């Protein structure tokens, strides 16, 4: 009689523990929702990926459509080679553009896809041709200061060199 109650408690305890583990992995860790089996991989080259990390989301129109599968440095072109794993349910035109964006002020970096107008769709192994790099804050501030200095010749004496990316 004693034994059966203990058995019941033991079973209930272990079941509750494993249920908690399951909730943690499925609901919190989101395991299973992103198997690489039902996705296709496309590549994109970026001049600068900023703080992009592997497993960062790939979004189009704000909806997560895939994940960053791999990032490595292409030593022949001195560019970052980013592999995107996109969910099989979504297909994009061949002239889709990819840009590295930031969600919110302190948010994570993600890859944003902007669909183009091509009739042909992106297939596995294709390369996204039009890419836009991450915005690096220091460079942005530098450009801003240079353009400010150009606006006021009195302050700049008209001798400051024009940065290559500064708006005319």
């Amino acid at each position, binding site marked *: 009689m004693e034994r059966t109650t203990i058995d019941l408690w033991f079973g209930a305890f272990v079941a509750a523990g494993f249920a908690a583990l399951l909730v*943690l992995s499925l*609901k*919190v860790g989101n395991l299973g929702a992103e198997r690489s089996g039902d996705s296709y991989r496309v590549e994109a080259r970026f001049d600068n990926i900023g703080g992009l990390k592997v497993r960062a989301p790939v979004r189009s129109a704000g909806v997560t459509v895939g994940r960053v599968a791999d990032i490595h440095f292409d030593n022949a072109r001195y560019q970052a080679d980013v592999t995107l794993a996109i969910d099989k349910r979504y297909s994009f035109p061949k002239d889709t553009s990819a840009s590295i964006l930031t969600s919110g002020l302190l948010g994570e970096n993600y890859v944003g896809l902007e669909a183009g107008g091509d009739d042909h769709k992106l297939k596995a192994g294709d390369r996204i041709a039009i890419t836009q790099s991450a915005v690096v804050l220091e460079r942005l501030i530098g450009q801003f200061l240079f353009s400010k200095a150009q606006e006021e010749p009195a302050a700049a004496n008209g001798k400051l060199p024009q940065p290559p990316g500064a708006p005319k």
Partner: protein
Amino acid sequence: MPTTCGFAQETRVLERVRRSVASLGHRVIDGIWRTGTVARFFVRLLASSGPSFQRFGLVMREVYFTGVLSLVIIIVSGLFIGMVLGLQGYETLQKYGSTEAIGVLVALSLVRELGPVVTGLLFASRAGSAITAEIGLMKVTEQLSAMDMMAVSPMSRVIAPRFWAGVISMPLLAALFSCMGVFGGYIIAVVIIGVDNGVFWSQMQASVDFRYDVLNGVVKSFVFGIAVAVIATFEGYDAPPTAEGVSRATTRTVVNSALTILALDLILTSLMLRGGT
């Protein structure tokens, strides 16, 4: 006259210094000695834990006492800690206008750190101290010696089941703790403060990785379970057979378990986070 008096005082001071240095050295040597004894005890424990799997009922009984009876404190404290995390995190994240990251904050801090560590500390003080007191009292009342007389190994009959019960209970309790904590954070953030439900979960799911976060948390709680169970059973087995000895052993279980958990946590975290992401 004054010179001799000064001399006597000097010797006294020197004697005091000598004694404190000696006691310090004694403590260090004693600690090293104890570590060795614990290692030997652990090996003996593993060697004689075969019967506790042949008679699994013994382990199940101990899981009931150490695990099931700790459920209330684990669930309640998990809920409260999750709620506090939700409140504090909201307060801080609000300043940066990114309150939707509250789910990430609550889930990551619980799954990675607070779940295993706080569960380990609670487990050491709730179940570890009970194990030590029980085994110590068995030793005081000479039940362990009596078992030895009857050719029943107290190691495999009393100590190994308690050890394995601790090792089984800890990861399950830690998972329950984290789960309740996330639920507590959900209650505060979504139900009371009014963060969007979908954003709360989707941000959490985007940032919590199964292998890096959830599995590492389970590994941590497993290691802490082994540490607490070894310390609790050893202190009980090693307790001087007096009332004072048992009380001291119980205190040592809680203190040593807490220190060991925190030290192991630092080591494990540095090993796990070395790869980045």
